[in-house]
C-alpha cells in the first residue's frame, strides 16, 4: 500500500529544498530538484496503482471533524493521473521559457503541483479548500510574474478576481454543508445530503454550480481563460488547461451532481442548454481567432462545455464520459499548448497569418501537430472519441437537443484544419526559411503526450475500469 501522505510530503520536500537553496547555493540545480521530486511522485502513483493507496486522517480539532483527511474516492484515479503526469510533461517546456527568478517559479510550480494532487484525494472539506486556494494563489503568481509582458497584469488580475469569486462561492457552499450536516467529512456529507432542507440544498447547489461555471469555464464567466492562457508561459498553460480547469468539473460532479441528484434533474434541461450554447459560442469565437494559443484556449472552452453537458445528463454514460473527456482533453490540450509554445520559440510568432508552409522545414513537428489536431477533433483511435461518444450517449438520453453541439464539432473541424493549413501547408512564409525542426528532447516530450492519447483511444477500458462513480 502506498501512503497518500507521500503525495504531500514529496513535493513539500521539494519546495523546502528550493526555498533553502535560495539562501545558500547548493550543488543541485533547481530543475533537477523539481524533476526529481515529480518523478518520485509519479513513481509513487504508478506503484500505488498496483499496490493500492492507504488513506490517513489527522484530526485538528477534537470536538468536530475539522480534520486533514486523505482518501481515494471513486473519481480519484483518473484525476490523479492528470495531476501527477501532466505537470511533469509541462515542466519540460519551462526550461527554455523561464529565464528570470527560476527558483521562485519552480517553488510556485511545485506548490500548485502538490495542491492539485491533494485536492483530488482530500476527503475533508477543510483540506480540500486549503489546497484549492493554494493552487489559485500560486497560479496567480505564475501568470503575474512570468506571463507575457504586455497583458500579464490585467490577465492575472482577471484570473484572481474570477477564481476567487468562484472560491468564495465554494466556501459558502462548504459552510452551509457543515451547518446542516455537522461534518466536514465528504463521506458523511454525502450520506446526509438528502437530509438538507430544500431551500438550503438549492443554495448549496447554486453555489457549487457557479464555482464550476467559473472554473471550467462556462459562458458567461469564461472571459478570464483566454487571457490567462495567452499570458501564461507554456508550462503554466499546460497546468491550467490540463488540470486546473478540471477542478471545476470535479467539484461539480462531487458536490453538485452526485450530492444533489434531485436538484440537478430539476435544472437538467437549462443546464444542458447552457452547456450546448457555450459549446457553440466558443467554437464560433474560436474560428475568428488568429493567435494559435487563443484559438486553443477557446476550443478548450468548447470541450469543457461538453464535459458540462455530460455531467448535467446525470447518466452513467454521460458522467463517466465527462470524466474520460476531462482526462483525454487534459493530455490533448496540453500537447497543443506545448506545440504552440514550440511554434512561438521557433518562428517568433503564433499569428496564423504570418505562418505557412512549415511542413517543409519541420516534418517531425508536423507529425505531432497533425496527431494532436486529429485527436482533438474526436477521430476514433484517439482518446477524445470514446469520451465524446459516452458524453453524447448520455446527453442524448437526457435531452434530445444536446446533439446540437455536434455542430460545434463541425465548426471545430473547420477552424482546426484551417489552422493546420495556415501553419504547415502551402508555400513557406518569407521569414521562415531558416526555421529548424524540433529537437530530440521536444520530440520525446511530445511522444509522451501522444502515448496516453493513443492508449486511451484504443483501450478506454483501462481508465474506465480504474474509476467507479459514487452512484
Amino acid at each position: 500500500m502506498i501512503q497518500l501522505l507521500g503525495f504531500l510530503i514529496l513535493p513539500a520536500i521539494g519546495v523546502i529544498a528550493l526555498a533553502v537553496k535560495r539562501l545558500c547555493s547548493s550543488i543541485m540545480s533547481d530543475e533537477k530538484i523539481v524533476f526529481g521530486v515529480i518523478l518520485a511522485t509519479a513513481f509513487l502513483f504508478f506503484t500505488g496503482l498496483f499496490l493500492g493507496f492507504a488513506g490517513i486522517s489527522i484530526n485538528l480539532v477534537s470536538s468536530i471533524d475539522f480534520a486533514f483527511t486523505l482518501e481515494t474516492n471513486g473519481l480519484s484515479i483518473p484525476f490523479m493521473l492528470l495531476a501527477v503526469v501532466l505537470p511533469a510533461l509541462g515542466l519540460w517546456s519551462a526550461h527554455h521559457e523561464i529565464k528570470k527568478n527560476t527558483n521562485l517559479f519552480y517553488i510556485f510550480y511545485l506548490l500548485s503541483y502538490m495542491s492539485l494532487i491533494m485536492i483530488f484525494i482530500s476527503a475533508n472539506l477543510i483540506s480540500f479548500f486549503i489546497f484549492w486556494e493554494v493552487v489559485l494563489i500560486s497560479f496567480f503568481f505564475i501568470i503575474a510574474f512570468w506571463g507575457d509582458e504586455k497583458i500579464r497584469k490585467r490577465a492575472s488580475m482577471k484570473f484572481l478576481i474570477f477564481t476567487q469569486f468562484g472560491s468564495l462561492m465554494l466556501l459558502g457552499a462548504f459552510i452551509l454543508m457543515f451547518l446542516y450536516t455537522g461534518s466536514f467529512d465528504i463521506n458523511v456529507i454525502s450520506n446526509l445530503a438528502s437530509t438538507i432542507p430544500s431551500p438550503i440544498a438549492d443554495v448549496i447547489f447554486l453555489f457549487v454550480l457557479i464555482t464550476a461555471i467559473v472554473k471550467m469555464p462556462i459562458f458567461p464567466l469564461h472571459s478570464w481563460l483566454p487571457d490567462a492562457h495567452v499570458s501564461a508561459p507554456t508550462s503554466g498553460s499546460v497546468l491550467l488547461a490540463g488540470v486546473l480547469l478540471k477542478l471545476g468539473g470535479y467539484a461539480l460532479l462531487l458536490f453538485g451532481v452526485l450530492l444533489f441528484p434531485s436538484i440537478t434533474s430539476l435544472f437538467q434541461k437549462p443546464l444542458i442548454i447552457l452547456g450546448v450554447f457555450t459549446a457553440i459560442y466558443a467554437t464560433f469565437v474560436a474560428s475568428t481567432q488568429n493567435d494559435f494559443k487563443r484559438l486553443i484556449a477557446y476550443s478548450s472552452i468548447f470541450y469543457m462545455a461538453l464535459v458540462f453537458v455530460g455531467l448535467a445528463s446525470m447518466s452513467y454514460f454521460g458522467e463517466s464520459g465527462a470524466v474520460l473527456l476531462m482526462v483525454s482533453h487534459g493530455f490533448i490540450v496540453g500537447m497543443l499548448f506545448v506545440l504552440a509554445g514550440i511554434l512561438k520559440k521557433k518562428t517568433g510568432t503564433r499569428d496564423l497569418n504570418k505562418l505557412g508552409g512549415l511542413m517543409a522545414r519541420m516534418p517531425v513537428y508536423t507529425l505531432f501537430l497533425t496527431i494532436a489536431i486529429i485527436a482533438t477533433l474526436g477521430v476514433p483511435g484517439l482518446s477524445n472519441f470514446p469520451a465524446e461518444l459516452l458524453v453524447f450517449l448520455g446527453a442524448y438520453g437526457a435531452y434530445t437537443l444536446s446533439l446540437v453541439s455536434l455542430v460545434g464539432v463541425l465548426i471545430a473541424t473547420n477552424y482546426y484544419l484551417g489552422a493546420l493549413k495556415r501553419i504547415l501547408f502551402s508555400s513557406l512564409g518569407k521569414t521562415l526559411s531558416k526555421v529548424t525542426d524540433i529537437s530530440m528532447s521536444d520530440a520525446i516530450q511530445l511522444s509522451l503526450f501522444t502515448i496516453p492519447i493513443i492508449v486511451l483511444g484504443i483501450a478506454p477500458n483501462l481508465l474506465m475500469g480504474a474509476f467507479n462513480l459514487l452512484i
Partner: protein
Amino acid sequence: MLYLLILPMLLSLVLIPILGERIIRSSLIAIIGALSSFLLSVFYFWTNLGNSTIESYNWISGSNFMLSFRGDNLTLALSILVSFVSLMVLVFSVFYMRKEDQARYYAEMSLFIFSMLGLVLSNSTLLFYIFWEIVGVSSYLLIGFWYKKESASAAGKKALVLTRIGDMALFAAIIILFVNLNTFSIPNTLSSIGFLPVQTLVLVGALILIAALSKSAQFPFYTWLPDAMEGPTPVSALLHSATMVAAGVYLLVVMSPLLLLSGLDPVIVTIGMFTAFLAAFLALNHTHFKRILAYSTIESLSFMFIAVGTLNTGGAIFYLVVHALFKSMLFLIAGVLAMLVGLQDIHALRLKKLGKTWLLIPASIGFASLAGLPPFASFFAHASLTVGFNMIENILFVFLAFLTALFSFRLFFIVFGKRSSTRLERSPVSAIPIYLLSLFSVVGGVMALYFTNLIPSFAYSFDLFTLCSFVAAVLGVVTAFEIFGKGRYDGLLIGIKLRLKFLFDHPYDGFLTQVGSLFIRLGAIFARFEDMLSAFYDKLADSALLLSSNSRRVQNGDTQTYVAAILVGLVAILIVASAFI
C-alpha cells in the same frame, strides 16, 4: 479470426515509419501487407462460402459496446475487391510516386486500406463509424499529400469538412439508435427498428442518408470530389473512385431495411437521378482528364444510389464491384498520362497524338465500360442495376445512358483520336495493374452468373429498356465520334454546351462559399460580443488594480499621516456614535 484480414495493413502502418527506406522500401512493406490481406480474404471467402461468422469484442466494460466483425459472402467479397484494387494501386504507385516522399505516402495509404477493409467487415454500427471516420481522415491526408500546393491543401480541407457533416450525421444516428435500442450490432438494430416511433425512424434515416450523400459525393455535397483530384492520381484511383466514395453506398445497402421502413427510398432515387444528370452534364463540359473522371464517378455512384432507392441492393453492390475495377483502371491511365506526358487538359493531350500507344486498348475497354456497352462487365452491371426501375426511372436512365456514352467517348476520341507513332514508356509496375484491371473489366460479366448464388437479393434482367439503353449508348458513341472524333469539336461543342458548368459548378461553389461566409459573419457577431464581454471584465480588473495601487499609497509608513488618519477616524467615530446616543 477476421481481424487477421485488417491486421497486415496495420502492421504496414507501424512498420513503415520504423523500417521504411532504411532497411526495406516502404512500398514493399505496403504491397506485402495488401497482398496478405488479399490472399487471406480469398482464403476466408472460399472456406467460408455460404456461411456467416460474427466475432465480437467488448470495448468498454459495463455496457454492451460491442465491436464486431462479420464474415459472410458480401463482406468477404468486398474485402477481396478492396484488397485487390489496393494491391493494384500500390503496385502502380511504385511507378507514379517514385520521386515522392515514400514513407509518408505508403504509411497514409496503409492507414486508408486498413480502415477501408475494417469498414466493409464491420458488423456493428460503432465499429463501422470508427473506420468510416479514419477513412475520411486518411483521405484528407492523402488529398493534401502535395502540401506545398495551395490548391491541394485547400482541397483536402474541403473534403474533410464536407464529409464530416456526414460523419456527424452518422454519429448522431448511431447514438439515437443505441439510446433507443441499446445495441450497436447491425443485425440486432435492423431486427428491432420496427419498435421505433415513426419520427425517430425518419430522423435516423435522414441522418444516415446525409452521411451517405456526403461520403459518396452526391448533391448537395458533391463539390469536394472534383477538387480532391488535386491529390496524387493513385489516391484518386483507390479512394475517390473505387473504395472510399463507395462507402456511402455500402452504408445505405447495409441499412436498407431501415431506409425502407422510414420511407426515404423515393428521396434517394430523386437525389440520385438529379446528381446523375448534373454530373453527366458537368462531365461533358470539363476539359481536365481527371475531373471528367471524377464527375463520371459521381454519376456512377448516383446509379448505385438509384438502385438502392429502388430496393435493388444486389444490383448496387454488383455495380459497385464492376465500377471499382474499370474506374480505378481509367484513373491509372490518367496517371500514366500525367506522369509521362505531363498534361491533364484533354485538348493539350490530343496534340500529343496518343492514338497508337499501349494505353489505347485499356482505355477503350475502360470508356466502353463506362458507357455500359456489351460485352464488358459493366453491361451486365447495368442490366442488374435497372431491375427495380419503374417506367419513369427507366426512361430517364436511357437518357443517362446516352449522356454517359457521349461524355466518356468525347474524352476518348479527343485524347486518343489522333494517331501517330508516339510511344509511351511501358514499365511492368505501370502496365500490369492496368492490364489486370482491364482484364477483369472484360470478363467480370461472368461474375454476374456467380453473384446470384452469392448475394440472395441479386438479379439481372434483359428487357426492352436494356435494349433502349444499349441503343442510346451506341448513339452516344456515334455522336461523340461525329463531333469530337473528327476534330470538329470546337464549333459544334458550343451547340451542345448547356452551360451548366456556369450554372452549377461555379455558382454552386459560390453558394457554398456564401454559406461558409454566413457562418463567418455569425462567428464575427459572437466574437464582437465576446470582445464586449471581455472589455467589461477588463474594466473590472483594471479598477481592481487601480483600487489596490491607490490604497497602497495610504499605507506608506509615514507616521504623521498615520497619526492624522487615526485622529480623523476617531473624531468620525465619535460623531457617528454621538448621533446614535
